[in-house]
């Protein structure tokens, strides 16, 4: 078979490892789909710096075994490659997930308007705290199946961790190309993000435990909390 018919750009584009090619000014000249997701969490200037600082002395490529973490994305190694002065690439390798397999008890799930729970939680929060709050949600998100009581508890505790914050931003949107696997079945991810200038982290462990109990993946940072919620229409 003639290898000319193989579309290598296509193969790299759909590869799971993020690949970004920069020009000498640090501008992105090409990136694959996986890198698009990465750039939702990482700053491209920081990645360019890593590429420059770790490039081999001569043209070629160099693999560096070093952990990199961008929010919930964890990498165990990366590769820097360049063949001329015009461009340099960085390719990152995902650390295999050691997450326990997620299971769900279908009896606990009820069709739910997630925006309604969010609105009720905010209304309750505003009784106690007068913080400015901006809400960016998609009102057309269809009902999803969830444990309503535990999810409401999760939101209450998460929002309370921002009780000292001046401005709180809450966003809820469907992600593209990301999934949560539960009982062998893949579910799209609905991403709920609480963000502010500061937050209290003393209840993070409790929040994480509640999230784990309802198959929601949680990420905690100094200024925000992210919940990846499995978009389960029906089991």
């Amino acid at each position, binding site marked *: 078979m003639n290898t000319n018919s193989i579309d290598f750009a296509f193969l790299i584009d759909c590869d799971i490892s993020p690949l970004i090619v920069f020009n000498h000014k640090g501008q992105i000249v090409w990136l694959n789909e996986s890198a698009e997701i990465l750039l939702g969490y990482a700053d491209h200037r920081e990645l360019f710096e890593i590429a420059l600082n770790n490039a081999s002395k001569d043209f070629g490529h160099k693999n560096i075994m070093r952990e990199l973490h961008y929010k919930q994305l964890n990498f165990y190694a990366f590769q820097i490659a360049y063949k001329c002065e015009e461009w340099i690439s960085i390719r990152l390798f995902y650390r295999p997930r050691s997450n326990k397999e997620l299971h769900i008890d279908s009896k606990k799930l009820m069709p739910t308007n997630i925006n309604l729970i969010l*609105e009720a939680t905010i*209304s*309750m929060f505003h*009784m106690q705290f007068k913080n400015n709050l901006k809400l960016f949600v998609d009102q057309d998100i269809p009902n999803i199946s969830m444990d309503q009581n535990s999810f409401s508890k999760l939101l209450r505790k998460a929002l309370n961790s921002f009780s000292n914050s001046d401005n709180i931003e809450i966003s809820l949107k469907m992600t593209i190309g990301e999934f949560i696997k539960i009982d062998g079945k893949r579910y799209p991810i609905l991403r709920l993000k609480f963000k502010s200038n500061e937050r209290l982290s003393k209840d993070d462990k409790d929040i994480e435990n509640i999230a784990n109990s309802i198959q929601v993946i949680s990420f905690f940072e100094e200024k925000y909390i992210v919940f990846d919620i499995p978009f389960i229409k029906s089991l």
Partner: protein
Amino acid sequence: MSKIEYISFRSPELTNIIRGLELTHELYVATILIGEPYIGKRTLIRQIFPDIPQISAKDKKELETALNIEESLVITDFEELDNPDKLDFQNKRVIAIANKTISSRVLDDKFAFIYKVPPLKERKSELKEFISYFLKKAKEDLMVDIDITIDSKRLDLSKNLLSLRASIYKEVLINSMGFKDIEEVLKSFFYKSLDGDNAYRDNLPLFERPLLKSGLNRYGSQLKLSKVLGINRNTLRKKLNEYQLD
């Protein structure tokens, strides 16, 4: 003490609670309302969830049975439970009402929505509505047909709606009684309390003190009051001194 069947008015202080309850009306979540007794918690819940059965946590066995068979339940007197951890609210619409503070661990563990209902004294706009509602009701019940202005400073809010209602009824009675009614009140009082060996002097202040105090308030000067009362100015001064009203 009898249960109070009151209407409730929407005040800014309750807006968020009502909004939250209405939003979660159809959800299978556990909610709790905490606040002093007689602040309208039960009335509020009955208005928003009229068809959900209510059960008191004082009857533990009945509560356990109800939780097993009902998918929606209002639990009153939640503070009476010794061991709330045992209750399973999974996939149930539970609305609990507590008159006292509940441990934060239990609240956190059991409830998704926790509302603290403010006492009546903190709900200024609603208070006016309640006063006018109870005044109308008291006038109807006591068949009083005169204009009565209620001095809100004299109202008792120590037991919220319960004491407010009682103090308004008392105000209506006080304002509507004539000579005959007061005479009847005194007759009844003396009949029950007259005792000892100096009852005349002991009971005289009951008549003299309010007479002198109100007279002074109304007429301002002792000279004018002595004329109205038809007594000597020196006698009046002596009496005022005796009751420490000078």
